[in-house]
């Protein structure tokens, strides 16, 4: 079974703090995506990383793809209440295979 494990599973921090969420697998990914999902809605794509070692920034969010393309991290600087949600990593294991395998998710709560 191909698994993407995320840690931590739950995270609750004060507004203004920094945090990092991790996504790990024993398998290599052709690319990896990060999504945010809010209650009653479907996941919304935040970013796609493709190259090993790649770093992408989206305002206060920084995404990194591991050199071996087996892991990724999401770092949020100065968290805000609007960052609250379920963060999911996902990837296709083979290029051209569009089926996504999702991680176990990190539920983030930012306390005002």
């Amino acid at each position, binding site marked *: 079974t191909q698994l*993407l494990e*995320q840690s931590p599973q739950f995270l609750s921090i004060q507004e203004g703090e920094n945090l990092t969420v991790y996504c790990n697998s024993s398998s290599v990914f052709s*690319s990896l995506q990060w999504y945010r999902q809010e209650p*009653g*809605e*479907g*996941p*919304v*794509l935040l970013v*796609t990383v*493709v190259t090993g070692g790649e770093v992408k920034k989206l305002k206060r969010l920084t995404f990194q793809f591991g050199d071996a393309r087996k892991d990724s991290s999401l770092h949020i600087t100065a968290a805000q209440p609007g960052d609250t949600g379920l963060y*999911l990593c*996902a990837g296709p294991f083979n*290029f*051209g295979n*569009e*089926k*996504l*395998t*999702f*991680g*176990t*998710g990190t539920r983030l709560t930012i306390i005002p």
Partner: protein
Amino acid sequence: GAGVSQTPSNKVTEKGKYVELRCDPISGHTALYWYRQSLGQGPEFLIYFQGTGAADDSGLPNDRFFAVRPEGSVSTLKIQRTERGDSAVYLCASSLSLAGATQYFGPGTRLTVL
């Protein structure tokens, strides 16, 4: 333009009943996906359509689950003889038929089997 829409938003049924869940993809998207998300977990792949045909149905848990997309647009996920373990949010996504194309998700249908 409109996003992916799913109906109904909520469905409550009794064990053993038959249910149909509908997905309207974004206009022009030829690829369509069904996923299932259980409480507290990430979505799990069920089936993927390219046009009218199922390109990959490896995620369907058993033969009680079936999906169609007869005209290459709207898709229906059909579940026969529902079981309590089928309770979950069923998500639909659509995309352009390009390698690595972004999948756009609908809000899901929450299915509860009593």
